[in-house]
């Protein structure tokens, strides 16, 4: 096995056109706060946050709007100062177009911060305190997965993490917000990395940056020059280098076990954007209320990176960026490989929005699905060593079990297979569908399990009630019999124990 892999190598991944420039080289712009913001309550992985404000209430920028709810969740804060005008459903930034609960905030134009306090010397605090502050600031992973950052920080403390891998790979084409952030705020990021090292107890940080971002590498190297335990590691540009498992293997040589976490090999992975957010949260006490977003795509007139308050409508961001040249064939939130197609432009920006792409028909290259010719290009492209063609075949035949057996659960939905497929088979859609079906089945099974318990307990209850009724009746009968037989006393005692015996 070892020899085989040495001989043939693991030639995973693809080299798509990156389309990163000129957007990456354009100067970062900051978007003014629009009149109205729609702050979604589901901006993170896990349960939606629970609103703690009332309609009509006035809030200042950075004030808490919603509390985390459940084990995996994150707090949400006001992106500007103003008045809460509604708490209700709006279209979610999600391909389904389903509604999501959101807080509508009418901006007062002052954009006044609440009284926030940063920490001057956070390194004196115990690590758990840092995680707590990060949680209070509602920081989530800004790479796109939006896992609550504080949870990862505190979990990794328990998991005895030795290495902090910082993901600056940004392997998705078109996106350059991490690149831009590293160029503009390298010092803040390095400070954030330091804080995260402290919080996790890791002894070194490896910052993986794809070698197609020389400016970012230079800026980060300069900023981290004084800190030898923070190493900037250029990695070859190859999609999906920024995927957790691939990046950890590239930087540390460790292979994360299937169904495992980076913690299993002593590693925790964070995005460089998250480091910036941690820096903001700890040094200034500022919660996550705005983020850098790449606006790009063939239809965008002036592509670039924009600092956008969370809750701004995609439509407004596109307008601020300079509008569109032509009507887009597809609007995408995130990168073209893993991002979500948007049902419409009137959806809000959320914490996980790394990019807004208005793609032209030529870029989307939509073609009808043809039969699979088993060319196995997808097998060569899959970074996980899966057989996408076999998985898709199983799913086409509604054989979910077969798909799981061929590795469906190991699929990271990176999109390499569909990107290279000459037959234009929407492989990722098959896999997403199957994963959705699987979890629906899982939920259904749980529900049936609990239903069965309910039915059983009801049956037991009815039985008990019937029995009690019968016993009561028997008792009454016995009592009556006893009363009736009060005169011939000798029979009473032999009659009474019988029902008692039955109850025992």
């Amino acid at each position, binding site marked *: 096995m070892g020899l085989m892999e040495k001989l043939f190598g693991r030639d995973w991944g693809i080299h798509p056109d990156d389309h990163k420039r000129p957007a990456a080289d354009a100067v970062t712009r900051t978007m003014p706060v629009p009149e109205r913001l729609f702050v979604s309550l*589901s901006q993170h992985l896990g349960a939606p946050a629970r609103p703690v404000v009332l309609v009509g209430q006035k809030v200042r920028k950075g004030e808490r709007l919603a509390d985390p709810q459940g084990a995996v969740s994150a707090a949400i804060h006001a992106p500007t100062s103003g008045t809460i005008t509604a708490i209700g459903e709006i279209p*979610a930034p*999600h*391909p*389904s177009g*389903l509604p*999501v609960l959101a807080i509508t905030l009418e901006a007062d134009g002052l954009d006044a911060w609440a009284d926030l306090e940063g920490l001057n010397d956070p390194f004196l605090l115990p690590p758990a305190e840092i995680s707590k502050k990060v949680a209070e600031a509602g920081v989530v992973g800004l790479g796109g997965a939006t896992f609550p950052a504080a949870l990862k920080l505190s979990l990794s403390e328990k998991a005895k993490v030795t290495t902090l891998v910082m993901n600056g790979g940004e392997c998705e084409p078109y996106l350059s917000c991490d690149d831009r952030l590293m160029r503009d705020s390298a010092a803040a990021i390095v400070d954030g990395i330091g804080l995260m090292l402290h919080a996790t107890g890791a002894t070194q940080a490896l910052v993986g940056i794809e070698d197609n971002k020389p400016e970012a590498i230079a800026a980060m190297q300069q900023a981290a020059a004084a800190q030898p335990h923070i190493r900037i590691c250029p990695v070859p540009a190859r999609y999906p280098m920024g995927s957790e498992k691939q990046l950890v293997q590239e930087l540390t040589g460790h292979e994360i076990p299937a169904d495992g976490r980076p913690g299993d090999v002593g590693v925790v992975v964070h995005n460089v954007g998250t480091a910036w957010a941690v820096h903001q949260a700890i040094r200034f006490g500022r919660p996550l209320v705005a983020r850098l977003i790449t606006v790009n795509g063939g239809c965008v007139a002036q592509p670039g990176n924009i600092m956008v308050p969370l809750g701004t409508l995609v439509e407004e961001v596109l307008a601020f960026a300079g509008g569109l040249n032509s009507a887009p064939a597809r609007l995408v939130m995130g990168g073209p490989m893993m991002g979500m197609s948007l049902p419409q432009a009137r959806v809000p920006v959320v914490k996980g929005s790394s990019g807004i792409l208005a793609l032209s028909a030529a870029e989307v290259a939509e073609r*009808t*699905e*043809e*039969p699979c010719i088993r060319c196995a290009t997808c097998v060569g492209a899959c970074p996980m060593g899966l057989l996408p063609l076999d998985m898709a075949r199983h*799913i*086409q035949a*509604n054989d979910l*079990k077969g798909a799981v057996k061929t590795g469906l659960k190991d699929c990271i939905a990176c999109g390499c297979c569909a990107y290279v497929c000459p037959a234009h*088979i*929407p492989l990722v*859609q*098959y896999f*997403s*569908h199957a*994963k*959705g*079906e699987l979890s*629906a*089945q899982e*939920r*259904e*099974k749980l*529900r*049936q399990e*609990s*239903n*069965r318990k*309910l*039915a*059983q*307990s*009801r*049956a037991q*209850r009815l039985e008990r009630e019937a029995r009690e009724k019968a016993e009561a009746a028997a008792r009454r009968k016995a009592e009556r019999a006893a009363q009736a037989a009060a005169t011939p006393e000798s029979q009473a005692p032999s009659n009474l124990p019988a029902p008692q015996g039955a109850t025992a």
Partner: protein
Amino acid sequence: MIAAILSLTILGAALGLILGIAGRFLAVESNPFVDEVEALLPGTNCGQCGFPGCSGAAAAIAAGSAPASCCPPGGKTTAVAIAEKMGLALDLAAVADTGPKLATIAEDLCIGCCRCIKNCPTDAILGAPKQIHNVLKEACTGCSACIDHCPTEALVMQPVPITLQHWVMPKPLAA
């Protein structure tokens, strides 16, 4: 010739003896599938399948007299699981899976008669006499056993709304 006839006869008798003994000691009492199938059914004995309770349905499925897809509240998931257990081919198109449904109570029609409560197999309906009843979403199996018992038609089966958390990416239309 005689030897051939004799040896064949003795062989037959000996094998018959072995089979007779085997038949005595290796007899299988009941259909082993019944219990396993019953375990896959919801167990709410709602009766929508037309059999007396889930055990009746399980026996019918195991005997082959009922299709694997005979349990409406179980839906597609249960049908697939049973078909797999029994080694049956299942025509998924025949499973009219309209998605899970929930009983809902129209508050303006409910008179608080408590009749539905008595018929709910999972105690999913809360309420007291002369009080408007309420359905516990988590406990309702969508078996619709309560519907016919409502004197005012306040009980209606409604599809469970799809939320972001429950949404499933549609399967691509085959080319």
